[in-house]
């Protein structure tokens, strides 16, 4: 976390970025990352309607939008995990329409071999992980285990 924070601080020096996390899983990572970035920055949150709860004719949408304007701001999307890239792709396309100065992403975990879409602005990666299911540190299994302070491999869950 310290390494990521230092790298981000170096790259964004003098720019006061907005860190944007998607509820709920990324909250834990954002909280730690924010405290590891020793330069001024803002934080904000979004929430997206998940695919599992979709209705006919529904599409992905923000069910909680940003509280701050990102026009002319440097935006760093804080992702718990990037795998298919579908969610990040949607958020990037949505936010790009709001004319930020820059739009990049930091992923706590990355599964690049599971990408369905490419060309994602993932500039920082905590860990590239194998094709396993994790709980803890914000990751849940049917809303359980988020509170665990560390990542755990959920054996037999995937």
């Amino acid at each position, binding site marked *: 976390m310290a390494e990521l924070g230092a790298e981000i601080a170096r790259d964004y020096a003098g720019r006061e970025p907005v860190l944007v996390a998607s509820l709920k899983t990324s909250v834990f990572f954002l909280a730690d990352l924010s405290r590891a970035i020793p330069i001024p920055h803002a934080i904000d949150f979004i929430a997206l309607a998940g*695919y*599992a709860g*979709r209705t*006919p*004719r*529904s*599409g*992905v949408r923000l069910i909680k939008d940003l509280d701050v304007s990102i026009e002319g701001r440097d935006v760093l999307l804080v992702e718990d995990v990037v*795998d*298919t890239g*579908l*969610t990040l*792709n*949607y958020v990037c*396309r949505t936010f790009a329409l709001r004319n930020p100065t820059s739009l990049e992403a930091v992923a706590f975990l990355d599964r690049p071999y*599971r*990408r*369905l*879409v*490419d*060309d994602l602005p993932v500039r920082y990666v905590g860990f590239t992980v194998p*094709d396993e299911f994790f709980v803890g540190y914000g990751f849940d299994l049917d809303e359980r285990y988020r509170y665990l302070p560390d990542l755990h491999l959920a054996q037999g869950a*995937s």
Partner: protein
Amino acid sequence: MPDFQAYCGRGVPRFANDVELECAKLLDYYRVPWDYEPTTFVLERAADGSVLEAFKPDFYLPEQDLYLELTVMKQSLVTRKNRKLRKLRQLYPDIRIKLFYKRDIQRLAERFRLDLAS
């Protein structure tokens, strides 16, 4: 057939199986423009010019300039498809294509709770 919003092909797509349909629904949900089997790549021709072997990837994502091929065959049975994919890459080195195996699709199904028959 669902009323697709991000489909950018012509005509009604006729999917070969539930996996392709669910993949289309997933791309559509996330508003990723997609087309279904828009391109046939010729891999081998006879002396008279007739096509001996061809490959038609399942999906094309125009914004990504990326083809997706899904296979529901067991890993042990995908040798022929892998060979065709290698041939495609040799003949069309600029084409970007990803092959998703049954295991990858199962992971997708678990992640997104897809309605797959198998």
